[in-house]
């Protein structure tokens, strides 16, 4: 029995070795969330993570952008994913899977920004200017995120701190649309003094903040402010220009042109899937959606589309497709804010302020965009006519960018143009799986 004792104790000894060290295994492709933003380099990489979320396929990569144009009246659905047709038919259900993924992607961006905004101030090893720049960019991205939430869904829960546990945000109550927009302005105001007045088309600067403020004030119908902030960017004419022809800002693999105020960067290693939904099978896409016949006719009309007809192209078998995103590998930038938009913002603000002049007035801004498209000056001469001309100009100019739906909603023209009689449908339903007591469904949906 002595032998048995030896064996037993030996066996226990052998196996017991495992217990402590053996069960301690660490990953290699991730790090613990306890050591994330601790010094200069990690603050910078965390900021890149925020941009990465902003550029993700469900946000500014593809899905969020598609909400802006599918809900409009230029695009038809040509693929297999029928839920996309809900946008086109203005019959969106709360179980629409695109809505859910956009919603998640935006809040993911916000959480990443919250980490930077909260943690970077305490980090050592950065100059104040560097720190301010990093925090300022995060504020800008958070502002843009809440702006997109507010214009798509109205009021949302406002999260301003990094999430550290699953129950972190349980107490957050849904805000109103006004409160959500107020948060946008707060963040823009916080970002502005922190950011340098430089030109960087891929990252936020003071000028990017001004550009977004211009859009913000336009949405708020604060025409004077919209004009001021648009002008602040336009006036930097050496850096922000309307490049002619229209295709100059995207064709021939162009990127970072002077047309661009803020664009998102993609490369062969981090691609932009947007082209897949536009390009036909022949070009390796799925042509999930395509310009509809009405738009094809408009954009090909030399008096309306002008040289913007490059937005559409035709396959060998005669199918039209959108061609703003076309590159292979899929490195197409996402154009978040273009100089053309600032001209049209200022045009609209000036028109609303009844400055219709062809010199430093609404018509001059509108004509600048038309001239670039190879069109004659506008013939509109009343306030209403100019406003409608601007609306129609935006319809063509931004046909494949996320504007048309939001434009028709903010101007109250969705009923007239799209035939949406139920005002509740001007906001998207909160995704079904996000609805809770604290986050009730928008009116008119269930």
């Amino acid at each position, binding site marked *: 029995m002595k032998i*048995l004792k030896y064996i037993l104790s030996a066996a226990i000894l052998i196996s017991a*070795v495992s217990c402590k060290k053996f069960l301690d295994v660490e990953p290699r492709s991730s790090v613990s969330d306890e050591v994330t933003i601790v010094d200069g380099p990690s603050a910078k990489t965390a900021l890149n993570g925020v941009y*990465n979320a902003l550029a993700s396929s469900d946000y500014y990569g593809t899905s969020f952008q598609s909400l802006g144009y599918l809900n409009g009246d230029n695009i038809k659905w040509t693929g297999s994913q029928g839920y996309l047709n809900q946008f086109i038919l203005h019959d969106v259900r709360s179980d629409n899977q695109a809505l859910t993924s956009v919603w998640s992607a935006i809040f993911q961006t916000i959480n990443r920004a919250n980490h930077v905004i909260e943690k970077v101030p305490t980090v050592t090893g950065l100059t104040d200017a560097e720190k301010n720049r990093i925090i300022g960019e995060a504020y800008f991205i958070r502002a843009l995120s809440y702006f997109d939430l507010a214009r798509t869904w109205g009021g949302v829960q406002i999260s301003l701190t990094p999430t550290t546990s699953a129950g972190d945000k349980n107490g957050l109550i849904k805000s109103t649309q006004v409160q959500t927009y107020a948060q946008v302005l707060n963040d823009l105001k916080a970002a502005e003094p922190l950011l340098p007045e430089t030109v960087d088309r891929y990252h936020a600067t003071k000028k990017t903040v001004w550009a977004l403020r211009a859009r913000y004030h336009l949405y708020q119908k604060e025409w004077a402010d919209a004009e001021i902030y648009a002008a602040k960017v336009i006036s930097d004419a050496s850096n922000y220009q309307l490049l002619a022809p229209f295709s100059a800002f995207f064709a021939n693999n162009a990127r970072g042109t002077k047309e661009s105020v803020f664009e998102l960067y993609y490369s062969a290693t981090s691609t932009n899937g947007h082209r897949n939904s536009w390009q036909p099978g022949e070009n390796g896409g799925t042509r999930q959606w395509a310009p509809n016949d009405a738009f094809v006719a408009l954009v090909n009309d030399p008096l309306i589309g002008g040289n913007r007809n490059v937005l559409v192209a035709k396959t060998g078998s005669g199918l039209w497709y959108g061609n703003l995103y076309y590159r292979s590998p899929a490195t197409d930038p996402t154009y978040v804010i273009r100089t053309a938009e600032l001209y049209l913002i200022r045009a609209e603000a000036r028109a609303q302020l009844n400055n219709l002049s062809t010199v430093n007035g609404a018509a001059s801004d509108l004509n600048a965009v038309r001239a670039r498209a190879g069109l004659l000056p506008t013939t509109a001469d009343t306030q209403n006519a100019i406003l409608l001309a601007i609306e129609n100009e935006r319809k063509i100019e931004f046909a494949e960018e996320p504007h048309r739906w939001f434009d028709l909603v903010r101007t109250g023209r969705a009923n007239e143009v799209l035939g949406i009689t139920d005002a509740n449908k001007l906001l998207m339903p909160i995704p079904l799986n996000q609805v809770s007591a604290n986050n009730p469904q928008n009116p008119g949906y269930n």
Partner: protein
Amino acid sequence: MQKIKRISASYGLILGRSTLLLSLILVTFLGPLAASAQVQTKPIINSTLTGTVINSRTKSPVEGAVVHINGTTHEVVTDREGKFNFVTGQKFPYTLFVSLIGYKKKEIVANGSPVNIELEESVSQLDEIVVVGYATQERRNLVSSVSKVSATETKNLPVAGFNEQLQGKAAGVQINSNAGIPGDGIFVRVRGTTSINASSDPLYIVDGVFINNTSLQTLNTGGRATSPIADINPADIENIEVLKDATATAIYGARGANGVIIVTTKRGNFNTKARVSFNINQGVASAIKLWDLESAEANAEVMNVAWINTGIDKPSTNQTFANRPFRPVSEGGKGLPSEQQDYDRLNDLYRTASLSNYDFSLQGGTSATRYYFGLSYTDQESIMRPVYFTRGSFKANLDQKVNSFISVGMSNSLSRSFRNQATAGDGPTGNMMVSTLNSATYLAKNAADGTPIRWNGWDNLQQLLDNYNTNTKSLRYIGNLYADAEIIPGLKFRTSASVDYDNYNESQYWNTNTVQGSAPTNGRATSGLSDNTTWINEQTLTFRHRFGTKHNFGALIGNTLQSNIRQRTSAVGTGFANNSFELISSAANTTSSQAWTKGNLASFFSRLDYNYAYKYYIEVDARADGASNFGKNNQWGYFPSIGLAWRLKEEEFLKNNSVISDLKLRASAGYTGNQAGIDNFASQGLWTGGASYFDVAGTAPQQLGNPDLKWEKTRQIDAGVELGLFNDRINLQVDLYDKYTSDLLLSLPVPAVTGFNTYLTNLGAMSNKGYELTIVTNNIRKPGFSWQTSFNISGNINKIEKLPAPITVYSRDWVRMQEGSSMYSFWLYKQLSVDPANGDAIFEDVNKDGSITVADRQILGSATPKFYGGFNNSLNYRGFDANVFFSYSYGNDVYNLNRFFAAESGTRPDRSVQSIDKNYWTTPGQITNVPRPTSVGNNYLIEQNSRMLEDGSFIRLKSLTLGYTLPKKLTSRFKVESLRFYAVGSNLLLFTKYSGADPETNVTSNQNAQGLDYGTPPQPRTIQFGLNLTL
């Protein structure tokens, strides 16, 4: 555990991986010690005994019978002529025990030499030896619920994995072949599904090695995944045991909750001559049925109808009769429907496939060594071009007695599986089935000048067939090395080291003739190298002793250390000069990635069993598991069980009963766990380094930590009856069970406002209650003629008992898991009828609010069958043998996505129309369930229509085998021991109401979505002819 931890700290320098070496040293070191403890004497020869063992029914010699002299450790094995030979110190007379699996144990008193012993074949399952965790038992002594399947019954079924061959063979084991693609993953559940986010697959053990059952596939083949089980050659398998209840599975603790499938491969026998066997067969496979597609004319007609109706419903679309797509060419259209030509693509894609299989084996043994060598090659073509599966395998099992109390041995299996793959399932490009089945039948294959045409952005089928280039090579080694030492009689120590290694090499090339490779991509090549390595070291100490005459006692303790590492490196290249260049080194653009993960498991286990006079049984099992992937607060889990049995037949009142030949009652209860499929670092809060921007590295939150994370825990109660009637002519086994799984490892949806979508936590519960019944009858048992029938039926009721919020699965949320319903339930809008007046689909307005909204979606149907099983008959008449086997499943629903992704009555342009949907509404008063074709309104906009939900119940003639063995008199002249010719047919008949090609189908490897039929080829009907030759 505290104490052990302290010990471990003091011996912390010794690393886990050196334990094998230590154990071996231990055995070799202790061996002589143990030897010296025994008294060694010079052998005295007192008698020499020779004899012959024959089969009492057929009177033919019995090989491999073990002859044992009572009271000694001495035993010999009969040779091919049934002869044995003893030289012993015992004096006549003495008692001999003769035993062999499949025969009744014989006790005979030898008064002198030679002796002739007749062994009676056992028709009783009671004598069957059953492998359980870390031991074997006779079925009569079994306290737990275990199903056993002999590989000879199943091995000729032409599917790649042995698990797929088990369909209908074992009660309580549900098997669904997802697609007719050899080597692809299948659905296996033992007593139901226990988990949502962890795996519900059983634990597979081959020759003591816990093997990997998770596919290493990363290439997209339409949602499906390959089966690692297909790397194992079924021809090398002797037996398969399925452990089901708590007593059987608790010894596997944290991995036992989904049942355990133990595979025992073939080994040689001591003292037998070398025997060479060949099994060769060749065959063909074809589809039982394919899909019924409407003609080009009908297909074009519905396109027109939908076009015009949509225009009527929404005039702004400007769709009118005048501009309908199929109008005369002279009017600028595609020609009238009646002018359309038919194009059959199904016949281009499907073929009569060939099957071939070659098995060679050599087995035998000397007094101290036994061996089994196997060499096999199998080639199975899918009926869908160009897919095929080949596997070459090599098997070597060796056992060596070092001396009278130490033996060592090894099991080795090395295989190489090659899969020529193609996408069939979900996804628009490169997809065989989408290009074929979904394409309208009026779409021309080629332009007038012969140029292949692509439609709908899909590939041209012929171009795919000509240019498909996707394949995978899996090199798999499963091996085990052990040493056994009988320290004192009854006390055995065993140590073993095992490896499961899989090198999985994937490559894919899309040349410019395919959509994915055409300009501007200009060729796309993908190469991926994955490997999965599992190291296992295990020690057991077993003790078995009979105290007095009636107290039978056994004990087992053991430990396991297991480490699993999985890594992958992959690269993608695009932009090739031309189609002659396929290697990524020639690509203009390349990207690459790398992944690595590791998980460790440490375990201790024990078993105590006791029976009084083989009448009253008790067994207690327990295992403690510590895993690296769980939170620091719950790293260890404990899983106990208890089992009781009462063999009433041994009681006086039944002992002499002539009707009841056996009666046993069993009951067991216990806990098992589950963690399979959970990420190795799931409990840690992590940031990823992969969130780059502007080509500069970026970091971002990846997952929330949960230090409290722990195993899912399954409590199982089982009660069983085993009954033998009329001298075991009828054997009946019934089991009732109740499994309740709590602490589900749940990827709990969290509000997105947190920045996360899910959080892995232990929440939720699931139950499985069911019954199993197996009846085996020996209808006829005469010299020269036998007939055995077996029947099994199992039913399982699965219910999600607790789930805080519903979870939807798969695209369009077709599948939903919610509290109170069962897994694999479909979440749909219920179409009640089609309004005969206007052709509009009428959906059930569940909340009566007057409109059809998401609130009206409901759980309708489930892919889980109400009951399933098999029915088998085997007959032997002189040299002839026949086996007829049916498997069946009742009450399982299938959601027919092939219909959904077809034309949807013309609302999807240029897609096909299945015959079941041709009867769409056209005229007022028409009664149909296919709504009026229009893209406006709910008729086709609602994508979760119950109309596509169909009954998937089936009965299939799973296999039919006919064989003839040549008379031995004839074959022995040619020194051939046995020669048998046979024919095997599989899936010869299929009875089902399902409208698709095969109700046994699933498009996705997502374990929570079942019964989604989309684009997978059906299981083939096969016929094979073969021969077994033994020399």
